[in-house]
C-alpha cells in the first residue's frame, strides 16, 4: 500500500479579517503550493472541512474551493463534523492515498466565523447540540464545556487556577508562533479575573472566534520524494463518535477521544509515551486536561497538570508537550480549519520549520480534533518522521 505523507502545508492569517472564506483559502493554498507545480498538475481530489453554511450562506465548498484552486472535474466535497471537520478532511485524504485511489489529495478547511458577530457564531455553533433537548434548554458551547469543567473540578484535585494555568501556558506558546491569533503572554490573574462566560469557565478559558483557512497536501511518500518536499508520515488515523448529548456520556472519561487516540496509536504501532508533541482540541481549558488523560499522556484525574514542565508532573505522566502552537486557545480556532492547523503545526515541528517554538528532538506527534461538544466526534492522527514507526 502507498504510504500517505504530508508534503506541504499552508494557512491564512487567523482572526478577524476582511476576507471571505474562499479568499482565505486562496491564501492558504498559495502558501502550500509555493515552489510546487500548480494544484491542477498534482491534486486528484479535494476534501474541505467546514462547520457551518450559516456564516456565509454557502454550501458546496468542495466545488467552490476546487474551482478556486484551478481544479475541475475532480471529486470534491465538503466534510462536516463541526470542529472536527478539518481532521475528517485529512483522514479522507489519507485513506484515499493509502488505498491507492489517488496520489495527491488536498485536505483543506475554512471558516468565516466573524461574519455575523458573537451572536451569529453562538447560534451557528449551537446547531452542533442535540436539537430536541439541549438546544431547546438554552445551552451554549461554553456552558456545555462548563458542565464538563464543573464535574472535573468536583471529581479531581484540579482548581480553577489550574485551568487558568493551561491558558497561560498556551498563550506563552502562541507568543512564539507567528501564525497565532493571540501571540501574547498573559498571567494567571488575567484569566481568573476575566468575565464569567459559563461558570466555572471565564472568558480566558475559551478559544476565540476567528476566521481562517488551512491547506494540507497529502501525497504518497514516493510523490513527495519526487517533489523534493520534506515529508511527515501519517502513520495512524482513528475516529470515533460518541453520544450527541453531553448528559448521556461519561463526562470525565472522554471515551470517544480515547478510542480515536488508541486506534491511531495502534495503526502507527506506537504507545502514548512515544508521542513528543500533541496538538489537542483545547476549545476550552478543561479540554486539554481531559484529552491529556484520554490520549494516555496523564494518569486519570491528573491531566490538569499539562501546563507543568514534564519533570514536575505526577508519576505516570509522559514527557509530551501539549499545544506547542498555542492551541485553539491562543493560536486560534477557525472551526473547519482547526484540525488542519493542528496538522500544520505538527508538520512544521517535525520538519524543523517551527522556529523558536520548536520542541527539541520531537519526531512524533498526536493530533486530536473534536467536533460537537467534546468527543461527540473525535479524530486522531499520529504523524511521525521516526524510523521504525509504521
Amino acid at each position: 500500500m502507498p504510504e500517505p505523507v504530508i508534503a506541504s502545508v499552508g494557512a491564512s492569517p487567523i482572526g478577524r479579517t476582511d476576507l471571505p472564506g474562499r479568499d482565505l483559502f486562496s491564501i492558504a493554498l498559495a502558501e502550500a503550493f509555493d515552489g510546487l507545480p500548480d494544484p491542477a498538475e498534482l491534486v486528484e481530489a479535494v476534501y474541505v472541512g467546514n462547520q457551518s453554511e450559516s456564516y456565509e450562506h454557502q454550501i458546496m465548498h468542495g466545488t467552490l474551493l476546487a474551482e478556486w484552486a484551478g481544479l475541475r472535474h475532480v471529486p470534491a466535497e465538503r466534510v462536516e463534523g463541526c470542529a472536527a471537520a478539518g481532521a475528517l478532511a485529512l483522514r479522507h485524504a489519507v485513506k484515499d492515498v493509502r488505498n491507492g485511489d489517488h496520489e495527491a489529495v488536498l485536505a483543506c478547511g475554512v471558516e468565516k466565523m466573524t461574519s455575523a458577530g458573537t451572536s451569529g457564531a453562538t447560534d451557528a455553533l449551537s446547531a452542533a447540540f442535540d436539537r430536541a433537548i439541549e438546544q431547546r434548554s438554552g445551552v451554549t458551547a461554553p456552558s456545555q464545556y462548563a458542565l464538563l469543567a464543573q464535574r472535573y473540578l468536583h471529581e479531581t484535585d484540579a482548581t480553577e487556577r489550574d485551568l487558568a494555568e493551561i491558558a497561560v501556558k498556551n498563550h506563552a506558546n502562541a507568543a512564539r508562533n507567528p501564525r497565532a491569533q493571540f501571540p501574547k503572554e498573559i498571567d494567571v490573574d488575567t484569566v481568573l479575573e476575566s468575565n464569567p462566560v459559563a461558570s466555572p469557565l471565564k472568558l480566558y478559558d475559551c478559544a476565540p472566534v476567528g476566521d481562517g483557512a488551512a491547506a494540507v497536501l497529502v501525497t504518497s511518500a514516493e510523490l513527495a520524494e519526487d517533489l523534493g518536499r520534506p515529508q511527515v508520515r501519517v502513520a495512524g488515523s482513528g475516529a470515533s463518535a460518541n453520544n450527541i448529548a453531553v448528559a448521556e456520556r461519561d463526562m470525565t472519561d472522554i471515551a470517544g477521544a480515547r478510542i480515536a487516540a488508541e486506534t491511531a496509536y495502534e495503526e502507527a504501532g506506537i504507545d502514548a509515551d512515544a508521542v513528543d508533541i500533541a496538538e489537542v482540541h483545547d476549545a476550552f481549558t478543561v479540554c486539554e486536561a481531559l484529552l491529556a488523560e484520554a490520549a494516555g499522556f496523564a494518569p486519570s484525574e491528573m491531566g490538569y497538570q499539562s501546563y507543568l514542565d514534564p519533570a514536575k508532573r505526577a508519576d505516570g505522566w509522559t514527557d509530551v508537550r501539549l499545544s506547542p502552537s498555542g492551541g485553539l486557545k491562543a493560536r486560534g480556532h477557525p472551526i473547519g480549519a482547526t484540525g488542519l492547523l493542528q496538522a500544520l503545526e505538527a508538520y512544521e515541528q517535525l520538519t524543523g520549520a517551527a522556529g523558536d517554538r520548536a520542541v527539541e528532538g520531537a519526531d512524533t506527534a498526536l493530533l486530536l480534533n473534536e467536533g460537537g461538544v467534546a468527543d461527540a466526534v473525535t479524530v486522531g492522527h499520529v504523524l511521525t518522521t521516526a524510523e521504525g514507526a509504521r
Partner: protein
Amino acid sequence: MTDLDASDPRTLPGFFDALAEGELLGGVCADCGQVLLPPRPACYACGSRAVDVEPQSPGGTIFSYTEVHAAPPAFAADAPYTVAVVELADGGRLLGRVDADYADVAIGDPVELTVQEPTAEQREAALDYEADWPVHRFELR
C-alpha cells in the same frame, strides 16, 4: 419498527406529547437496562434494538451545572440562568434549565422535573413541527 409513526414515544412527537401530559418517558434497553432519554430505536450502550418505553421518575440529583451568561437569542431575556445535567432516580441523565440561582445549586442537590408550555420567544424560535412541544425544567426540592 416499520410501523413507527408520530404517536410512538420512540419518535420525538410521541415523546413530547407524553411530556405535555406530564409523563417523562424513557427508553429502557431490554438487554442491558440502559435508560435512553428521549427514547430511541436502539441502545447506545450495547447496540440492542430491543428498547422498551417506560415512565421515568421526575426526581433526581444535580450531576453537574453551570450558569449561562451569554445566551442564544431566544433565551437572552432570561440570562443569566442555570443549566444542569440531572441524574434521574431511574438512572437516566437529562440536561435542562434549573429554576434556581447558580449560587444556590450544588452537585448532589435533589431536584424534580417540571413541564411548561413553550414561551412566546421559544415558539418564535421553534421549527413548525416543534411549536407545541413542551419544555422541561428542574426545580430544587
